[in-house]
């Protein structure tokens, strides 16, 4: 059985370490190993705490965004060896904390492409903390939000109500697939953080104003939703691999359900060029059989994407 890995990202001072410290106190967390880049002001007192120096390596044959974390590969392998040898306590989950200004994508890429990492670990969830008082700061924090499955909005006790609502709308625009929750001092139920479900894209258009970037604070990043009926799986694989090669720099995230004619949909989840193994579900949650894909990135047009995918699909059926 693979050991789940949780990636915790978020801008400087947004409450990553506080969140991790509180999570480790929770009985539902079990034994957890923690890998950090820096020992923050909020100390984590934990016997499986490991510090690494971030070291990135370019993936062979990859483009400029295909970067792996060499230090993380070494550390994950070492943890496995030591656990098997009984040199460290048994752990059943790993939390990786990135630095505040880090792009979380290399961690995702590492877990999905390194042979040892993908055979022994699985990326369970990407959690981004967002400062509830100061909001998003710079393109780094916009990307951290785009990549996340869960958004933890911190410092809710001191957030100004008007700012709180504005931030919630901004986050929903940037990443409509992520669930968000407001917290005080990192108090979050692990069951909510790790239950793995995505928001249903059907509720998005009405509630979030998906479709275009709003002002300079979004740094040109926006999201759009594609709706299609049944899509040929081979055509989709060709189309998406081609799209990610041509426009991977601008596509930060692709996530959604695809109807490929099976008993249930295929769950698609990509972070730039890193693609999670597609998950074939046993059944549909309801009677709606449409494929729906959320794209998060720059210069994306839902209609142009839809027309292109539909053309690839038609060729497969002709």
């Amino acid at each position, binding site marked *: 059985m693979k050991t789940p890995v949780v990636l915790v990202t978020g801008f400087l001072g947004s409450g990553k370490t506080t969140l991790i410290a509180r999570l480790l106190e929770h009985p539902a967390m079990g034994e957890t190993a923690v890998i950090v880049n820096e020992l923050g002001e909020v100390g984590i007192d934990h016997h499986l705490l490991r510090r690494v120096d971030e070291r990135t390596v370019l993936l062979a044959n990859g483009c400029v965004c295909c970067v792996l974390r060499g230090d993380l590969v070494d550390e994950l392998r070492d943890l496995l060896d030591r656990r098997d040898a009984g040199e460290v306590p048994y752990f059943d989950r790993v939390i990786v904390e990135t630095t505040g200004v880090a792009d979380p994508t290399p961690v995702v890429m590492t877990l999905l492409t390194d042979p040892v990492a993908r055979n022994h670990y699985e990326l369970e969830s990407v959690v981004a903390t967002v400062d509830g008082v100061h909001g998003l700061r710079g393109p780094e924090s916009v990307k951290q939000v785009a990549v996340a499955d869960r958004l933890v909005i911190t410092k809710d006790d001191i957030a100004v109500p008007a700012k709180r609502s504005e931030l919630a709308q901004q986050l929903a625009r940037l990443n409509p697939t992520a669930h968000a929750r407001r917290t005080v001092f990192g108090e979050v139920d692990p069951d909510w953080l790790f239950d793995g479900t995505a928001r249903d894209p059907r509720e998005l258009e009405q509630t979030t104003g998906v479709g275009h970037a709003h002002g300079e604070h979004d740094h040109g990043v926006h999201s759009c939703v594609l709706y299609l009926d049944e899509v040929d799986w081979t055509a989709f694989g060709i189309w998406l*691999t081609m799209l990610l*090669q*041509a426009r991977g720099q601008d596509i930060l995230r692709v996530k959604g359900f695809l109807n490929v004619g099976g008993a249930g949909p295929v769950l698609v989840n990509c972070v730039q060029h890193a693609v999670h193994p597609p998950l074939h579900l046993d059944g549909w949650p309801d009677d709606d059989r449409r494929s729906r894909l959320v794209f998060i990135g720059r210069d994306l047009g839902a209609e142009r994407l839809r027309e292109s995918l539909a053309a690839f699909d038609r060729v497969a059926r002709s």
Partner: protein
Amino acid sequence: MNEHWAEGEGGRRARVFRVALLNRVLGHFGLSLHDWSGAVYVLRDRKGSSVVVQDIGAVWSEAERLLGSPLDPLDAALVAELSR
């Protein structure tokens, strides 16, 4: 060797179908793809250059290298041709 996410299902028949579809797209850019023993692909351009590629992901990076620019699936002329 880890299997590419887009090539994990369907066996030999799916591979033949995939190559045929890829050739519909690559043909628009003057390239062609050939299956070599069901193990790797050979990508060729009209000038006679060829390159061995391992999987569907590498098809696009190698095609880009042969042509000198990315092959964009949103290209209007490509979409129009596929829609014919």
